[in-house]
């Protein structure tokens, strides 16, 4: 009989958060399932359930390696950890002395566990030129919620802890049921639907929930701010706002009323393409059937008016009194272990560091703590960027940033770049050195959720392959060699430090690991904090005025409009009508699949088998207009370039638009084209010239394109070169 044990841990296959139970036989994980005795009640998704394939993947990096050929040649030589870390430390020191501390840039993928390590390393090195994907995912909403309410983390209360569930739920550019940052929220959302009277889905394309919803609004991509303005107009004109909340707890309502006056249902319909009856109905439901909440999707943050879109949506929440009330938008009380970001916030961002942030002169919200990545790319290409050393972990900037050609050209100009990852991929191929990191099944670490009401333990289930190491170990070792005063003796001490506030200051990692979770939920949570002394004595919000701010003086001080204002996308039928003649389709790259997470998992056979090739959805009539049929390979072109995806005719999408699958590269393709990053990735088409004035976010989900069918000759092109994996057909289908 094999020796069998069960290890309890926390999944991190997306941002993570679901409690898991892993069965290990003779040291090999053989079975993964959800742990029913956790807040996520034993639910998991296809990404997490396929984890065993992740750890066994032939793409795994197992040893530190240095590049011995040219970039894109894929020639690597194994080196020792000591050599790798000493080289990094020497390069960092050399660059700091030669070009200043700001010459070190550190990048990350989406906010996984390494978030706090990279920020701590950056701050301990005296640089704030951190490249974070936050500006196109989550940061704008946190920043704007913060401006309006004084506290940045407002989340939908799906829990019913305060005795009420949301009666009206708006899902805005989001499919929480399949793609969720913090997937644990998916389960709570689904449970909360049992108590929901009105489910309003705002999405240009149909989903299972769109077709079951009380109301489904299909806006033109990029017009969401106008939709929020139009809904507020209805609420104001029909006198439906929450009188008590607005009168006592808000600032600037009269100015806001004036601002939204022009957004009549008729005008809103014209701009957003949503029938006015539906705009009116949605506004009434949200204002009358309270409490309610709005789940915002990051597609809104991948648009160059994202700042004001989110400001408008936040004002809409406030107008309906859907703030801090049970079943509405709530900022959660932290667990006893405190705020996990304190791990890097305790090292202050000095005015010196801040002044050297690339993009801070333009994007005063988005580039206040991290740099604006698109500005950095332009600056590198112009030879004006101060950055010479790039330490990269997890993320695929080559894939997710706008204008792939320029991103690649900029990255190739780096003096020294090191990439830390689980798998070989585009960013690794652009680097001088790669370091192997451990999968979540192979490490001990602290999981922290976006809503911040609990942290959970990733417990090591199995040893990592080769010499792969945990993120905590890798960053601690780099830190020890470059800024030892801010780092720890070893990984254990580093983990102990992060949970030290628990158990009245006595908690150690091993206690936390055993408990699995430190959280604050149920009756321990506090609602209506603004009515108590929680934020300020005598009640109020932690803002300058002590109120919920419809008008933001802070924004005015920074040189922005203090009230929400609609701005057309950089390329649109109305803003660039001439361009629209040549590129007559509105394009979005917001198409997500439940089995992929951003750029991840195209190398996992079980998941890849669900969608082997990237699909571009078009209405059958739109496809027919351009001579394209379901299953055809099509060219999609914008002024920046062209890519191919496979057409999927989809009657559930607005006519006249194309929804491309985002973040696509081909892990199985060779290093010569950065793993096929130019073949199908929509960011070859997106522009980095038109950015959100507050956050610097590019229009990734609203631009213009044209399409045509690939010719027979082009289908014979040797696009795909590898024959290695059976699960992807290597020849292009006719």
């Amino acid at each position: 009989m094999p020796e069998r044990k069960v290890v309890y841990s926390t999944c991190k296959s997306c941002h993570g958060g679901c409690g898991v139970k892993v069965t290990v036989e003779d040291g090999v994980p053989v079975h993964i399932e959800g742990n029913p005795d956790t807040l996520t009640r034993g639910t998991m998704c296809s990404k997490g359930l396929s984890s065993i394939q992740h750890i066994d993947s032939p793409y795994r990096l197992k040893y530190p390696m240095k590049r011995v050929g040219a970039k894109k040649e894929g020639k690597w030589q194994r080196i020792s950890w000591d050599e790798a870390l000493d080289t990094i430390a020497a390069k960092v020191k050399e660059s700091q002395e030669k070009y200043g501390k700001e010459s070190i840039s550190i990048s990350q993928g989406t906010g996984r566990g390494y978030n706090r390590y990279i920020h701590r390393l950056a701050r301990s090195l005296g640089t704030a030129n951190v490249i974070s994907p936050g500006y196109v995912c989550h940061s704008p909403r946190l920043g704007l919620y913060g401006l309006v309410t004084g506290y940045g983390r407002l989340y939908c209360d799906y829990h019913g802890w305060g005795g009420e569930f949301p009666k009206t739920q708006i899902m805005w550019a989001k499919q929480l049921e399949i793609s969720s940052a913090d997937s644990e929220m998916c389960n709570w959302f689904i449970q909360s639907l049992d108590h929901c009277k009105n489910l309003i889905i705002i999405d240009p394309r149909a989903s299972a929930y769109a077709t079951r919803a009380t109301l489904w609004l299909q806006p033109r991509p990029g017009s969401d701010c106008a939709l929020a303005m139009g809904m507020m107009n209805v609420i104001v004109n029909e006198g439906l706002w929450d009188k008590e909340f607005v009168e006592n707890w808000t600032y600037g309502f009269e100015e806001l009323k004036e601002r939204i006056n022009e957004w009549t249902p008729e005008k809103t319909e014209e701009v957003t393409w949503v029938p006015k009856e539906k705009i009116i109905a949605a506004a009434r439901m949200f204002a009358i059937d309270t409490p309610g909440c709005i789940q915002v999707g990051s597609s809104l943050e991948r648009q160059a008016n994202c700042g004001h879109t989110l400001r408008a949506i936040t004002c809409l929440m406030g107008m309906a009194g859907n703030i801090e009330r049970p079943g509405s938008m709530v900022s959660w009380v932290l667990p006893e272990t405190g705020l996990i970001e304190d791990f890097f916030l305790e090292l202050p961002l000095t005015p010196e560091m801040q002044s050297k942030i690339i993009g801070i002169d333009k994007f005063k919200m988005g580039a206040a703590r991290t740099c604006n990545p698109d500005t950095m790319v332009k600056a590198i290409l112009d030879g004006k960027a101060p950055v010479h050393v790039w330490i990269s972990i997890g993320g695929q900037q080559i894939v997710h940033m706008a204008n792939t050609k320029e991103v690649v050209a900029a990255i190739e100009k780096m003096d020294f770049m090191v990439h830390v990852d689980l798998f070989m991929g585009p960013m690794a191929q652009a680097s001088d050195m790669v370091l192997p990191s451990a999968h979540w099944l192979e490490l001990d670490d602290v999981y922290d959720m976006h809503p911040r009401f609990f942290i959970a333990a990733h417990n090591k289930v199995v040893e990592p392959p080769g010499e792969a190491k945990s993120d905590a170990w890798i960053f601690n070792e780099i830190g020890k060699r470059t800024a030892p005063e801010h780092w720890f003796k070893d990984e254990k001490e580093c983990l102990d430090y992060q949970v030290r506030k628990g158990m009245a200051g006595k908690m150690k990692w091993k206690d936390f690991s055993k408990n699995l979770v430190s959280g604050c939920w149920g009756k321990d949570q506090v609602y209506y904090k603004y009515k108590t002394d929680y934020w300020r004595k005598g009640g109020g919000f932690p803002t300058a005025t002590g109120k919920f701010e419809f008008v933001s003086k802070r924004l005015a001080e920074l040189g922005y409009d203090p009230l929400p204002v609609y701005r057309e996308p950089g390329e649109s039928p109305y803003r660039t009508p001439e361009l629209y003649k040549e590129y007559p389709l509105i394009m979005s790259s917001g198409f997500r699949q439940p089995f992929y997470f951003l750029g991840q998992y195209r190398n996992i056979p079980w998941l890849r088998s669900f969608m082997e090739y990237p699909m571009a959805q078009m209405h059958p009539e739109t496809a027919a207009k351009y001579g394209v049929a379901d299953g055809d390979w099509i060219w999609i072109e914008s002024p920046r370039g062209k890519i191919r995806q496979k057409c999927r005719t989809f009657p559930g999408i607005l006519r006249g638009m194309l929804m491309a699958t985002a973040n696509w590269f081909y892990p199985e393709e060779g290093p010569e084209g950065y793993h096929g990053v130019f073949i199908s990735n929509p960011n070859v088409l997106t522009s980095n010239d038109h950015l959100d004035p507050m956050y610097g976010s590019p229009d990734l989900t609203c631009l213009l394109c044209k399409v045509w069918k690939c010719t027979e000759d082009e289908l014979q092109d040797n696009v795909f070169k590898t024959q290695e994996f059976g699960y992807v057909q290597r020849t292009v289908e006719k």
Partner: protein
Amino acid sequence: MKNFYIDLSICNGCYCCQIACKDEHVGNDWTPYAKPQPDTGQFWLGLTELVRGQVPKVKITYIPKMCHHCDDAPCIADCAVGAITKRADGLVIIEPEKCTGCQLCASACPHEAIFFNEGLNIAQKCTGCAHLLDNEAEWEVPRCVDNCPTGALLFGEEKDFKKFIAEAEFLNPSAGTKSRVYYKHLPKKFVAGTVYDPKEEEVIIGAKCTLKDAQSKEAFTAETDVYGDFWFNGLKDNRTYNLTIKKGKATKTIDGIFTDKDLCLGDIPVEL
């Protein structure tokens, strides 16, 4: 006797069932119940997406498909070596050690639920995770059911699901194989549209819509809602209908509506 019960109205298409099946069966040898499932290419449980209608009247349904564990299973009848058996609990199992790889069962199955494993030269399909149900005390349902986060997929004794069965249908009733997989909310055809007044450019609320079957004269009625929309759900396939819209003195008739597919008739002008 046990059955599967699938409620399509709450399935979100998350693919957890399909992955759970792979996690349980790929690379794991559960002989005598089943040999390992290959990495890809087999769908002992496979999810299909069905999109019906045209914008803005569209319905999306995800349909998990699997072996129907039929009581009158053609695969059992056609197997030349007696490798396929019906268990007392209702599950149908292909015994991998008896299977000779002749593939007669795969061609006999009207549900396309049997797959051929070339490497092992055997036919394979859903086992209902009988290896778990028989041998692991804590397991009362198969992996796909256990991993369904919405409760759309259920499994259990017939007597405990009488209400479900009363409201359910079979996926392929014409196969007549006495399936043990019950579906609720299988998609039917719909006809929908929006009625508006072209002069006022406003939708018409409360218009009486009557849809009449041209042959059987069976009639359905609906009223336009606050968005001017009417919906006729649950219609039969391949029937011809006539639609009459009435508001006040105004009447409009649309003939020859054929339900070979779901129909969004678009914005229909009615002059008041």
